């Protein structure tokens, strides 16, 4: 799936994210075969164990090596219908690639994400040109499932249901489907055009998406429960958590996910020419992402501002290393106190230097707060409960909530993890529903 192809839900063209190029470009066929042949084809491979969706990685890589691209892609999709996006957005260094046995052999680990991207991309291209579908959904079995939120968890859940003949209907309040895949992934990894293409492909298997419908407002959970056999909640998290520092009201102070979404989706959004420096408060992966994006967009002076030390950061070391290559700095052991303004304009951030216990003013034009997202606090049905951190409580194996008809997955149950975790949740919830109805689980062999 290449960016820029027509999409049912068209994106405007003048988006800032389009200025970014791929950090890990699509392999050519020969590059992919060379890399695939490096794979040792381990037995009980640690890369599989490290994958939240348990893709049979050595098998799909071997199929690339033997030229069975269609089989390779199906090996991936069979357990992860978001194989196109996860190939690109997964923190592979922390998952499959980090587990590769080559790491213990003084050898570069296999570039699994790039191989997955190649297999999926080549197979989908062949599917389009040949008209031979990878998967043919089973006939309608008469069951219907409502899914709230069109993020990766719901989309994967819906895809697996559709293949087994269940009708999934996704309700999305935002104008664009895809959740964070469309609005939040760093554009040097994955852009919203590609996210929408993946969604189009999933929808093509018989998934209904209703855009602009807010559950709780336009339709009640009770109505959905009455009209469907089951309900899946995949609403993700809420907006950026604000620190409410003195001086933070007004222009020049951003929530990180809001700013990323504007860079990715908002037509004509620009960084004003007089903005040359930004301080990003936080040290998670979202903080690192936005810092690197700003640096790559040309801001000469971008730094992360963090209360603790580099060793304690929740952001991945490889992500910080990537950001540093673009000049992003890390200011450790300072606590933000106040946004300093002059004539209404942000000119600095006053912080408490925790080592010397004194207040210091750091000059900047923008302040970006990347200290987490609010929990989903929308209406829930009776029996669906949240834990102390606002996460919906589900059964670990089935992703079923306390309500027998309601399942949930993705960030709203885990507090904010990876797309691949959401994909695993969506699949497991779909399988649990199918099992409960005595239907076959997994992709139907007739489609093989």
């Amino acid at each position, binding site marked *: 799936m290449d960016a820029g192809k027509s999409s049912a839900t068209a994106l405007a063209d003048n988006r800032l994210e389009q200025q970014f190029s791929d950090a890990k470009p699509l392999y050519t*066929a*020969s590059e992919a*075969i060379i890399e695939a042949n490096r794979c040792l*084809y381990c*037995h009980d491979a640690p890369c599989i164990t490290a994958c939240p969706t348990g893709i049979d990685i050595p*098998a799909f890589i*071997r*199929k690339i*090596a*033997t*030229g*069975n691209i*269609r*089989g390779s892609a*199906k090996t991936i999709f069979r357990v992860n219908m978001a194989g196109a996006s996860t190939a690109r957005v997964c923190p592979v260094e922390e998952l499959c690639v980090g587990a590769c046995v080559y790491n213990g052999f003084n050898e570069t680990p296999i570039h699994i994400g790039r191989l997955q991207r190649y297999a999926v991309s080549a197979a989908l291209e062949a599917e389009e040109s*040949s008209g*031979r579908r990878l998967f043919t959904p089973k006939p309608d079995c008469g069951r219907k499932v409502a899914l709230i939120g069109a993020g990766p968890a719901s989309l994967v859940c819906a895809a697996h249901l559709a293949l087994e003949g269940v009708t999934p209907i996704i309700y999305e309040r935002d104008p664009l489907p895809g959740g964070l895949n469309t609005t939040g992934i760093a554009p040097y990894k994955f852009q919203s055009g590609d996210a929408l293409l993946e969604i189009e492909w999933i929808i093509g298997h018989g998934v209904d998406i209703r855009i602009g419908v807010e559950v709780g407002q336009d339709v009640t959970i009770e109505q959905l429960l009455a009209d469907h056999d089951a309900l899946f909640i995949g609403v993700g998290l809420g907006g950026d958590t604000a620190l409410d520092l003195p001086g933070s009201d007004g222009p020049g102070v951003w929530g990180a996910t809001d700013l990323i979404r504007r860079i990715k989706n908002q037509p004509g959004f620009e960084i004003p020419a007089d903005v040359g420096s930004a301080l990003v408060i936080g040290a998670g992966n979202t903080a690192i992402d936005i810092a690197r994006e700003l640096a790559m967009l040309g801001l000469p002076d971008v730094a992360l501002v963090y209360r603790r030390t580099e060793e304690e950061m929740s952001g991945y070391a490889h992500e910080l290393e990537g950001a540093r290559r673009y000049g992003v700095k890390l200011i450790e052991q300072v606590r933000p106190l106040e946004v300093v303004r002059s004539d209404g304009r942000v000119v600095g951030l006053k912080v408490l230097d925790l080592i010397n216990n004194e207040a210091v003013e750091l000059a900047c034009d923008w302040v970006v707060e990347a200290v987490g997202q609010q929990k989903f606090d929308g209406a829930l049905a009776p029996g669906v409960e949240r834990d102390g951190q606002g996460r919906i409580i589900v059964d670990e194996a089935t992703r079923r909530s306390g309500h027998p008809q309601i399942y949930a997955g993705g960030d709203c149950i885990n507090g904010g993890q990876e797309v691949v975790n959401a994909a695993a949740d969506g699949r497991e919830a779909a399988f649990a529903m199918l099992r409960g109805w005595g239907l076959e689980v997994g992709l139907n062999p007739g489609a*093989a």
Partner: protein
Amino acid sequence: MADLSIDMCGIRSPNPFWLASGPPANSGEQVMRAFDAGWGGAVWKTLGEPIVNVSSRLGSIDYAGSRMVGLNNIELITDRPLEVNFKEIYEVKKRYPNHAVIVSLMVESKEDWRDIIMRSEDAGADGLELNFGCPHGMCERGMGSSVGQEPAVLEEITAWAKEFANTPVLIKLTPNVGDILDPGLAAVAGGADGLSLINTIKSLIGVDLDTLAILPSVRAESTNGGYCGPAVKPIALHMVGALARDSRIPIPISGIGGISDWRDAAEFLALGSTSLQVCTAVMHYGYRIVEDMIDGLNNYLDEKGMASVNDLIGKALPGFVEWGELDLNYQVVAKIDADTCIGCQLCYVACLDGAHQCIHTHQGPCAAFHGESDHGMNPRLEVPPPVRHNGNALLAMVPTVDEDECIGCNLCALVCPVPDCITMEERPGAPGRESWNQRVARGLA
């Protein structure tokens, strides 16, 4: 999805993939796990009079970082009691009635053949494979390849087996012969129902340069073994094709020799194999490889619009002719794609030293004198400059083919590391077809 099921001289199998007689088909437990993984059949490790094996039995060659490109073994036939093997064969057939179990056999006397054939069939074998192929150990005792190398003996024992057998009899041939047609025709004369080939090639795998012990080393000594694995595939393809295209060989063939993936399998099918036997690749990676073999072959057949694997059998054979029939007027010429060329110049040096000096570089004058010959080190004046420079140092490394001088040997395309960068294109305007045989007939040769 294509139909992969086959019927080879009455032996039915859900797919053409069988374990070859060898360590992966040594026991019932293994064969059942293989069937669970997807294998359609198994040729049981050769049964015969009890033997004793040596320790240190395998050796291999690695090539350019690839492990086990070729494997050599000095292991003999089964070292487990016959009654245990027969009990397990019975058990496997009871649990997997639709899979093919072929029992490989190797004994000496006519009485022994009668006895072991009857016991194999009583145990439920779907077919028998007479091992006339092993080139190590057993041949010193008058069995294995020593039978396969003597057409008269091969024919006689085949006839014995046919006298006693109620199930199909396959003859497993040794490639250690001058002409594979000799044992093939003898097997047909003896009444064989099918052929299996190739068995292993007589080999020494190497010498340990520290100790000067030959490998695999059995207390500093070794002996010749049987060579197999990916490296032997071309030899096997030739022998399978040579038998399959001969009208005097009307019986089906089970192809063996370096089959590691679905592509190898498809090639053996196209050259006339009905079933396919695999050993080394399973020894390397396990039974699980059959999943991609089935999946990949299926996708290939679908793409080719073939509804059944049988449609592929022998499809390449019409193109297998004698050298004297080849068209001498067919001319190809090398084309280098400057856009994908990475400037390694391996084509240049291969052509310069290993072929016909028709590729030229543009890094100054050539290092060697080429005299007055029309093939030369120096580009002739007519040779056009490189296709693209653009001030790019890499592009300046793109060599140029002197197309008039190129004899179309393919070497440059073979050494090029970039797929499809060098292509061999037919020279336009070639006159009509003429073979050597036609020239001879016209009195020109």
